């Protein structure tokens, strides 16, 4: 009987173990079910809104990443909105949404339009501070700008262009921006470059500088326009200065496709993997980039300062990077990180 009792005991113990296994398995599966009720999620006292450039790029991801970290440190939730991503809403629509959502602060890349200025004013009326990043609209009611001013950026580009100017002949330089990223600031950069080149070029060097803003209001226009430049084959400039990331990548691809590598020098913007590859291969001469980490962090700092003090610095200057073949390794490592 003792033996049989032991057997029964072991069978029961086995059953209990089996049931416990089922229970644990089932609970684990139930735990995987996320009802979206934000269980275990951190909560914050403030809610900031970041409206990115209309073409979402890796650059904005970098900015958001650092800004988000800074926001968390400041007990704030940073929401990233990418215009044209979900409902084809414009930056202005999202500004309205931000105002209606009564967020505690808005970070956006200004485009200098009057509609935007009105909306920034509206936000200011609703006591929602607006910080502009990358490009500024100083005539709006924004509380602060984080980025490089046109003077600094112009100088940085000029430094790169100077090294690409041909001796004893005319170098045609084309500044390419797209209509989304073209603002008053872009114009100022253009004039700054023009002015600086005139001053710094050698006497026997001639520079024919022009600028073009690609109408990118509809999708894929940037890429099509860049290809048009090379297809016509007539007025291919000697130096192409790209004012944003998407344009840089498009130009790089077109250069390869139309076998213009070596004929056209490119000064790019930002350091995506593609751009870094191009720089290391020598296809893109160099690239100018802002310090995205600082951009993100300072934008949150500006909002925080404003909410605590009621005012903040009008301009936060961020560092700039010039990426050339010699230092491309550093940025690649950063990118990997």
């Amino acid at each position, binding site marked *: *009987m003792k033996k049989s009792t032991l057997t*029964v005991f072991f*069978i029961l113990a086995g059953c209990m173990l*089996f049931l416990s296994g089922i229970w644990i398995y089932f609970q684990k599966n139930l735990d995987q*079910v996320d009802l*979206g*009720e934000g269980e275990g999620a951190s909560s914050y006292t403030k809610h900031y809104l970041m409206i990115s450039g209309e073409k979402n790029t890796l650059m904005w991801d970098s900015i958001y990443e650092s800004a988000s970290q800074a926001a968390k440190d400041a007990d704030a939730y940073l*929401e990233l909105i990418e215009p044209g991503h979900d*409902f084809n809403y414009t930056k202005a629509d999202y500004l309205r949404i931000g105002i209606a959502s*009564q967020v505690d602060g808005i970070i956006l890349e200004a485009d200098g339009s009057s509609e935007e200025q009105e909306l920034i004013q509206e936000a200011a009326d609703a006591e929602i501070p607006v910080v502009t990043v990358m490009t500024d609209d100083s005539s709006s009611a924004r509380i602060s700008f984080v980025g490089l001013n046109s003077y600094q950026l112009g100088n940085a580009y000029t430094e790169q262009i100077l090294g690409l100017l041909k001796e004893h002949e005319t170098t045609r330089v084309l500044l390419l921006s797209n209509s989304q990223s073209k603002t008053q600031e872009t114009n100022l950069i253009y004039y700054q470059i023009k002015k600086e080149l005139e001053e710094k070029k050698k006497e026997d060097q001639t520079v024919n500088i022009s600028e073009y803003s690609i109408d990118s209001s509809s999708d894929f226009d940037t890429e099509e326009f860049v290809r048009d430049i090379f297809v016509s084959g007539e007025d291919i400039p000697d130096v192409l200065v790209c004012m944003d990331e998407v344009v840089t990548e498009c130009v790089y691809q077109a250069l390869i496709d139309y076998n213009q590598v070596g004929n056209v020098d490119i000064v790019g913007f930002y350091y995506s993997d593609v751009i870094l590859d191009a720089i290391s291969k020598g296809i893109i001469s160099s690239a100018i980039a802002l310090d995205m980490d600082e951009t993100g962090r300072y934008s949150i700092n500006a909002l925080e300062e404003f909410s605590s003090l009621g005012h903040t610095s009008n301009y936060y200057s961020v560092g700039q990077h010039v990426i050339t073949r010699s230092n491309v390794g550093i940025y690649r490592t950063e990118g990997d990180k």
Partner: protein
Amino acid sequence: MREKKESLSVQNSIQTRLSSAMVLVMVFVVCINFFIFEQIHTGVDRIDAVFSSNAAINDLSDTLNKLEGTVYEYLNTKGTKALENYYRYEQDYRELLDGLNDRNVDSEVKMLEKNIRRMSESYLEQTNETVQAKRGRNIEKYKASYEKELQLYEYINSYIYKLNNLRFRMNSSNYQILLSSMDVLYRLALVVIFIVAAVGVAIIILVVRSMIWPLTQLSNTAHEVAMGNLNVPILPVVREDEVGVVTRGFNQMLDSIRLHIKQQRESMEKQAQMKERELLMETHLKEAQLKYLQAQINPHFLFNCLNAGAQLAMLEDAERTGVFLEKMADFFRYNVRKMEDDALLWEEVDAVDNYIYILNVRFAGDIHYEKDVDEGIGDFRIPSMILQPLVENAVQHGIHDCMETGKIRMSIHKDGGNLEITVSDNGAGMTAQMIDAVMAGKARNNGEDRYSTGIAVGNVIDRLELYYKQKGLLTIESDGLGKGTSVHITLQVESGENGV
């Protein structure tokens, strides 16, 4: 009282143990089923919760649409009904908004909810403004306000759509997880149910077997006993239940039967021995009788004739002849009458006297016979025809060849509880071998001796043994040939009246 005691001694009765086993198995099965149903219930609840969020969003969207519809209707018609509906839906919408998140949480869904809630609050303010402007007939204001409100309405709808989409995407994956869990649970539940059924059956079989095993043993043993084999081992009492009580009772019964049979056998053996002894005795008596019948064709006829002769002798005044014949007749009568029964001591002594008288007549008074009998012992009962054969033997084999000098002496004395009888002669004597042969019953009288009454010493020895159930009552002593023989008998007599 005894019944009560028995019933109290039954611990762990079969009913209790069987019921306990059944109840245990039932409880086990119920618990397992409860567990499985609980898991299924949890799963179903979870699935319900998953899709209830979508349902809530749809409610929100429907109410918003109705609200916007009534605003438009009111602006269009300024109808009271529309205004009433507007207030009603506004209330409904506000209630639904209360269910949305209003905190800043690190969750896309929750932040969408918060944005919808905040935008909806702005939207409701705007609609209020619009309605108020309409009521105040401020056409420009209500139109501008309506524009703004419409835009907000679109944004909210877009966000609701986005939220719904997000929820649905999330819920779809949740649903997949739950569905696969439920599928696994279903399979495991089947396995568990089979295991539980098997375990239940095993437990019941074990319990029932443990209860039935002693009963089977009892039944087998009872069958063997019924077949007549009482040499079965004692059944062990495994448990103090009903079967234990029955087993103990069976063991006791078996013991009683064995004892009874043993007693019966012993008693039968005794009876058989007694019967055998009786038969032997009868046989010896019959043998003695036959010897007489062979020797004297008809003793009755003979002693009747002798009586007739005695009377005739008296008539003719032949007194001695008359006495002789009378003694002859007494002797034979005694022989005939007493062979079947025991006799009084004086009757035996008389028979010896008669015999000696007859022989003395025959041998002209040559036999010297003495007797020494204690007074007052004549009424003791002894087996009949004991003394006469011994005296006859002394005559026949002792002094037969020396009648003139031969003497026979018979002494009977009471010595305590014993009767000491000695018949001795001074005749031929016996060797030790002869004595042994006589004692072993080998030296039988062949019955052809003309002077013999036909009863040998061996017959006397046998009858004494049968009568007293004891050996060695008769001993023969002789110092050798020519030195006489002495036969000695020791008989136990009880001190009492005529008792032996």
